């Protein structure tokens, strides 16, 4: 129903190759998240799939059909934009029904489909309002409603939650995941937030400078990052990297250890250091420790670990959880 295949897809703006060449396969019903720092080409990639940008080279196959030259509307995809892109002068009802109206659907059919979508998204009471009379979360739902009425082969989300406040973002994250469970339609989701990527994805595509760094399930990426970039990008707080003598002890050019895989002690351990800043979250405490001869490292300890600024502590890496990288930044396994 909704598999998308990219073959050698590249995008060049002037002399600048935003995406040098990408091969990717998105299976039917999968929730795929493109994640990466800003400017890594993830939004461009999504727009290439949507047809809002022309590919410079390569081909895009949707459902076994070459869609490289098809205009956006004929690809059978729906998109939810970062700014929601609702039509400000139309009511919620007309906004959701707009794609159907453009497809010359019968008025009765449109009404029924809009009502169905509104019920799924809890928008029934707001159908006659204008977008500006809605809250951020409601606008987001209208945008999703406009996407689902077309019953597309796949949904494309372009950083849909970045304009919402933190609490609402967590809510909408859940709602979108729930929607995916209910509809079982392919979803491609772009974000720069690795938490969103980890929590929602079946498959994460980590992008950097227009290249795919690694593709895998969230836990794959967490446990077995292919390189320094992925190791540093996935996981929060980010992984500590140490090179030089301590890394040589593990036969690596650079060693990486996640904050949660450092054992802390006040008596003894591998590395000694002074606590710089302690961030108390309640359940956990993040310690920024100035380790002697190495530099700042982040450690994650239980919320009741008794420590304050200036304390001497000892850190011991969990030997089984150390990630090793060679001098090119690739993982050594």
């Amino acid at each position, binding site marked *: 129903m909704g598999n998308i295949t990219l073959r050698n897809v590249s995008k060049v703006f002037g002399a600048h190759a935003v995406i040098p060449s990408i091969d990717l396969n998105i299976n039917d019903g999968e929730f795929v998240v493109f994640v990466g720092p800003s400017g890594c080409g993830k939004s461009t990639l999504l727009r290439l799939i949507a047809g809002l940008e022309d590919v410079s080279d390569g081909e895009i196959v949707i459902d076994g059909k070459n869609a490289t030259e098809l205009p*956006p*509307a*004929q690809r059978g995809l729906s*998109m939810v934009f970062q700014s929601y*892109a609702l039509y400000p*002068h*139309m009511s919620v009802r007309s906004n959701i029904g707009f794609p159907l109206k453009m497809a010359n659907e019968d008025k009765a059919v449109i009404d029924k489909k809009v009502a169905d979508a509104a019920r799924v998204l809890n928008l029934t009471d707001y159908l006659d309002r204008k977008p500006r009379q809605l809250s951020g979360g409601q606008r987001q739902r209208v945008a999703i409603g406009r996407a689902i009425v*077309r019953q597309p082969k796949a949904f494309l989300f372009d950083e849909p939650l970045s304009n919402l406040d933190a609490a609402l973002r967590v809510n909408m994250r859940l709602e979108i995941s729930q929607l995916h469970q209910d509809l079982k339609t392919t979803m491609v989701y772009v974000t720069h937030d690795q938490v969103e990527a980890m929590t929602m994805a079946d498959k994460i595509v980590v992008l950097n400078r227009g290249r795919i760094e690694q593709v895998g399930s969230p836990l794959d990426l967490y446990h077995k990052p292919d390189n320094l970039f992925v190791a540093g990008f996935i996981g929060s707080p980010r992984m500590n990297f140490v090179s030089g003598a301590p890394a040589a002890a593990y036969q690596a050019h650079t060693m990486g250890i996640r904050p949660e895989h450092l054992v802390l002690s006040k008596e003894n351990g591998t590395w000694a250091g002074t606590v710089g800043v302690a961030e108390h979250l309640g359940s956990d405490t993040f310690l920024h420790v100035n380790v002697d001869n190495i530099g700042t490292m982040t450690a994650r300890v239980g919320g009741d670990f008794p420590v304050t600024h200036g304390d001497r502590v000892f850190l011991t890496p969990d030997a089984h959880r150390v990630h090793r990288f060679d001098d090119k930044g690739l993982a050594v396994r």
Partner: protein
Amino acid sequence: MATLHTRSAARLMIAPSVLLLLAWMIVPLAMTIYFSFLRYNLLMPGMEEFAGFSNYTYFLTDPAFFQALFNTLAIVLGVLFITVVGGIALALLLDQPMFGQGIVRILVIAPFLIMPTVAALVWKNMFMNPVNGLFAWLAKLFGLQPFDFLANAPLMSVILIVAWQWLPFATLILLTALQSLDEEQKEAAQMDGASAWSRFIYLVLPHLSRAITVVILIQTIFLLSVFAEILVTTNGGPGTQSTNLTFLVYAQALLQFDVGGASAGGIIAVILANIVAFFLMRMIGKTLEA
């Protein structure tokens, strides 16, 4: 505006300017009303006497008055139609990425900066002149009889000249409005399967409605009092075919030296302008609310 004290102080402070503005407006208006009730002809100085409503009666029953009323409306509506439709079309064209965009945009504004008398004379002598004009030359090129615009279609010619002057203004306002249309909305409509025409009807036009209202309001104010273009091209003629209210009042005062009748005409013009303003404000109130 926080306390009663600051509020009354503020009122005191603005009082001089308010009074000055009031006097500025009230004195000429009062004098005009006063003159409109006098038999006051410049050819018979010292013979002024109270005339009651006879000036109004003469002005309103003058066949030229109805012609002028019609012409005024024709100029306003005709120019508005040409500038709004043409302005939207030009704005859409100028919004497209093209070579030399900056220069083209400046060139488009140029007609607006030309003085009305100059623009009208250029049109009269270089374009519409039946002997030397460009249009006459073009007609002859195709073996046609040159058309004497100002003699045969005076009102249309005036409308054309005035529209040419106001087109840049409309284009400019509509272009800036067009550029403020959210790019993602256009893309969303594209994803939703809207053709270019549907995008224009359902997205661009509603977005422009506010700017169109502003164009209509501002232009109406100025178009009600078009004068220079008529004076230098047709002089209101032939007959009264291109006379509008402003020109009729001018003719009454400075060609027939009838200050009383002209004052009455001026007051009638003010009343008519206020009626137009009333409907305009209602229309604008509606658009700006939405």
